[in-house]
């Protein structure tokens, strides 16, 4: 059984439901002692942009997105944010929340090549 896990999320403003569920599953993985990485791409980068996650709350039984992100980071989870996806939207590292790191395809490929499973939202 691999000790790493990956969740890719490509929605935030476009689909708060998918963004929320991606972080819920990532919390389940990190909470199951899998070294877990979330890779945010396309519209998903907004999950890690200051002030954006606060706008997403799908309601019960889901926690607000900001709460899910904070729990994930505090539990040791990693958040990688697609660099070209940021640039395309006029964003930079300075716009990101603490704990989120700009990264590119090589980081994602290296992570997945260590044999973890990956789920996409």
């Amino acid at each position: 059984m691999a000790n790493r896990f990956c969740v890719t999320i490509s929605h935030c403003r476009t689909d708060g439901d998918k963004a929320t569920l991606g972080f819920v599953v990532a919390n389940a993985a990190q909470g199951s002692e899998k070294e877990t990485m979330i890779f945010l791409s396309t519209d998903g980068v907004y999950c890690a942009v200051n002030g954006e996650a606060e706008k997403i709350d799908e309601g019960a039984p889901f926690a607000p997105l900001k709460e899910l992100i904070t729990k994930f980071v505090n539990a040791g989870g990693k958040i990688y944010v697609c660099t070209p996806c940021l640039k395309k939207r006029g964003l930079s590292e300075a716009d990101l929340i603490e704990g989120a790191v700009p990264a590119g395809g090589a980081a994602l490929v290296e992570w997945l090549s260590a044999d973890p499973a990956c789920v996409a939202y």
Partner: protein
Amino acid sequence: MTQEHSPTPSDSPNTFREEMPPQEWNFDEEFDGGEETCGRVIINLYTYLLPMPPGTKVLLISKDPAAPIEFPAWCRMTRNTLLDMRPPYYLIEYKPEWKKEQPHGEPILRDHQPLPH
């Protein structure tokens, strides 16, 4: 500390089984996940257990309908021992394999490396 559970005079045998964990279970700590589900209850449970000494017996309570599937899977992945389960009650032993490494019952904290910036 070990908690004791005694039925009150108003408890009927049926309500006792539903509202209290089995009398024969001994445990040191208690975690009530309420009706929370999926990753929410798992991440809360994980962070709750982190400072516990190996060998701590914990009563889990969860009304999540998926809990009979979720907790056994989580215990297998995290090498905690599921001693017994009678939904909504679950009895686990936290990290029994670590007891040899930490014979004095010291908690083992996971190494949380700061993320690079």
